[in-house]
């Protein structure tokens, strides 16, 4: 009897102590409603912004773009140097360790680049992460030499926040599929805890990680919940089911602003929105293209439909993006009379038929915005019609070069080089099919120029030609609206990446 009582007393005491300890060490958890989905355990098996961001957090990131500095900064790759125009040397931090305690080394980086990103047939990231990389080799345990097939000054824009570095040892030991699914090793401040494709992904903080030590208030667990419907994200956010809601449509923000515990954080997106025009009749004439640009009242659309949640673009890019030139000329201001004159000069004094194609539901209010453009175009002398094909159809046709006039966005434009090449350099892609030898020369030069000042000059000159010659009318960058619970201190990034380590949960 005495023994039993003593046992119960001890048990109660232990429970109290444990209970107390648990209270002190309460785990902080943040749930985020996101619009994209992670569908595969293979970190290289998809090429979407959210996946790059999450896996970069799990495995590094290799390096990152600082919007505050307007430049790239080191993480796993502490620093780098350009040995010659086709050779880069990356120096790795010695502090990054995989979940099993082994150090992240140059062999892991080489393995990830050459065997996973480039060599693995399941990879869908070669073109986005390593388009010009032909070789990567370990010079020593913490130094990697990367060779490109042509000078690639914007190489960092491909590698930073995108290169996912996974463990070579785990791959060799378990094989690809088991290593990804059951033994996901990363050197980043968070580790993958659970992935249910189509539903959620859970990350858990590694308290021993150097970045985690620097950010003690970063959440212990982060749950990414897939919520594609805006109504669903807003309702879940209002109910505190999620504490961060990605991409709140402007017309829903007032419901959130009414709640004193919630706030809206707008951030300029790095996705540039534009109207692309293929140089085929009637857009083969520069005057017609310029007429389109003068016909669209961007300020009015931004002030009304977008409720001010967009920044007008007076060139391909805006503030915070690499190579932005505030003095870029010319500016395509709203001037319907000028549009009419330009159309008359082009031989279309009696108007011309055009069909504008737009995706529906892919970009903020895409259909509504383009609907508003139709009367503007008509008032300037066009006879415009709006077509709304399904996204997969439109995108395939754009990539084949069979859509003469379309509304489109280009995301992840921290450094505009890749986007400008992709859409405007002769022969790169048929998306617009534009060709201008002077522009090609400048774009080639900027890609081979490692002197930052000179490269910015080349970019500025190229963007000036583009604005004047108008193969595209650059419209705006949306302000992305994030819903944030007041318990969370976080500054959302202009791209779709989410780094939980940058969050602080208020105690």
């Amino acid at each position, binding site marked *: 009897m005495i023994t039993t009582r003593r046992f119960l007393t001890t048990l109660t005491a232990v429970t109290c102590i444990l209970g107390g300890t648990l209270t002190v060490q309460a785990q902080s958890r943040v749930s985020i409603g996101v619009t994209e989905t992670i569908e595969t355990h293979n970190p290289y098996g998809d*090429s979407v912004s959210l996946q790059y961001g999450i896996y970069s957090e799990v495995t590094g990131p290799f390096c990152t773009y600082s919007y505050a500095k307007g430049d790239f900064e080191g993480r796993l790759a502490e620093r780098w140097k350009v040995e010659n125009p086709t050779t880069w040397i990356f120096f790795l931090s010695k502090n990054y360790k995989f979940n099993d305690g082994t150090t992240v080394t140059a062999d892991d980086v080489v393995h990830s680049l050459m065997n996973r990103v480039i060599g693995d047939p399941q990879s869908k990231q070669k073109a986005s992460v390593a*388009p010009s990389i032909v070789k990567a080799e370990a010079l020593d345990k913490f130094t990697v030499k990367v060779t490109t097939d042509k000078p690639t000054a914007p190489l960092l824009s491909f590698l930073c926040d995108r290169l996912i570095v996974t463990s070579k040892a785990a791959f060799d030991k378990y094989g690809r599929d088991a290593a990804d699914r059951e033994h996901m090793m990363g050197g980043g401040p968070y580790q993958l805890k659970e992935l249910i*494709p189509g*539903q959620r992904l859970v990350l858990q903080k590694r308290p021993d990680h150097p970045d985690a030590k620097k950010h003690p208030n970063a959440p212990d667990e982060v749950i990414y*919940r897939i919520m594609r419907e805006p109504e669903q994200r807003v309702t879940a956010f209002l*109910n505190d089911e999620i504490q961060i809601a990605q991409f709140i449509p402007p017309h829903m923000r007032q419901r959130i602003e009414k709640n004193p515990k919630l706030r809206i954080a707008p951030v300029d997106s790095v996705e540039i929105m534009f109207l692309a025009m293929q140089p085929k009749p009637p857009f083969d004439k520069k005057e017609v293209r310029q007429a389109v640009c003068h016909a669209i009242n961007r300020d009015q659309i931004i002030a009304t439909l977008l409720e001010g949640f967009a920044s007008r673009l007076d060139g391909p890019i805006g503030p915070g993006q690499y190579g932005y030139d505030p003095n870029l000329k010319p500016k395509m201001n709203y001037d319907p009379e000028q549009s009419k004159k330009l159309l008359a000069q082009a031989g279309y004094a009696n108007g011309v038929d055009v069909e504008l194609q737009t995706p529906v539901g892919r970009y903020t209010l895409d259909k509504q915005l383009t609907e508003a453009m139709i009367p503007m175009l008509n008032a300037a002398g066009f006879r415009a019609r709006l077509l709304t094909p399904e996204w997969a159809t439109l995108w395939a046709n754009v990539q084949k070069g069979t859509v003469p006039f379309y509304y489109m966005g280009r995301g992840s434009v921290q450094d505009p080089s890749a986007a400008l090449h992709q859409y405007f350099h002769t022969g790169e892609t048929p998306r617009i099919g534009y060709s201008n030898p002077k522009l090609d020369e400048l774009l080639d030069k900027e890609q081979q120029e490692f002197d930052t000042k000179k490269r910015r000059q080349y970019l500025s000159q190229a963007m000036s030609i583009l604005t004047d010659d108008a193969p595209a009318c650059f419209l705006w960058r949306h302000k992305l609206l994030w819903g944030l619970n007041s318990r969370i201190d976080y500054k959302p990034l202009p791209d779709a990446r989410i780094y939980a380590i940058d969050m602080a949960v208020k105690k």
Partner: protein
Amino acid sequence: MTSYLFQRLAGTLPVLLLISFLVFSLIHAAPGDPTLLLLGEETNAAEIAKAKERWGLDQPLYVQYLKFVRAAAAGDFGKSFKYAEPVINVIKTRLPATIELAVFAIIIASLLAIPLGVWAGAKPNSWIDNLGTTFGLFGISMPSFWLAIMLILLLAGVLNLLPTSGRSTYGIAGPEQTGFYLFDSIMQKNWSAVWDGLTHIFLPALALGMNMLGILMRVTRSSILEVMNEDYIQTARAKGLREKNVVWRHVTSNALIPVITVVGLELGTLLSGSIIVETVFAWPGSGSLLITALNARDYPLVTGIVMTYTLAFVAINLIIDGLYAVVDPRIRY
């Protein structure tokens, strides 16, 4: 019975072949190219060519189809472009969620529709008949995507009673065994996970089952009305049975045959309806998987899912035929 079963199974083969041909042709005829959709914004011609070769898209369409049919006959729908895994494995991981949802939708629809239909049929033109008919009309008329949003707004938003989406709350469930979340939780006696699962499944199941509810209610009502006028019902009444017993024992059991047929047919509709509902509620089933596969033009996965649905539909119809014999002893095969 055995010969009947063989006959029916033999009859399904041309159906499956025709469906496979139609799906294969339609998905390939649809504009859009999986290589352009899956390889990312910055892809180039060389990468596209490699992917086409890897996925067999560089071969003539009839060769691709014949290869597909040969493999499918052995139960292999090929490898998903997006997931880089055998299609059958991808479907296996997502199908239990859809089945669980469909079963709950049927349960909700049947529990509400059959009693309502019986009451309405037993007392035609009464207030309960009017109420039931209006409710049935409401169920049939409401598009599931609209109803889903309204349910989220009301029950999750305004009343804050239920979660907005997903299948479970993170950290509650035990290890997955069968893929059926509720079944696994019951087997593990994890009652908090069972409750969590029920709260998550209620809204999507209601949104999915509402249309079926309306149809079932109306079919039950008209079937009851029909049986109520049969001679044997008059006989039962003449024997002095209480009206309650007449309705529930004699009328309802005889009126159930068309109801069972409708349940079977509607099960197929539920599978297709789940495509929208799963997307709205972020339900990780085969319906939302089909949307992902369609958006990516993942030909093998789209074909695999549609073939699975077709097989399910055929199997359900066979089961329903079998159930007739159980409900009505006069029916023998």
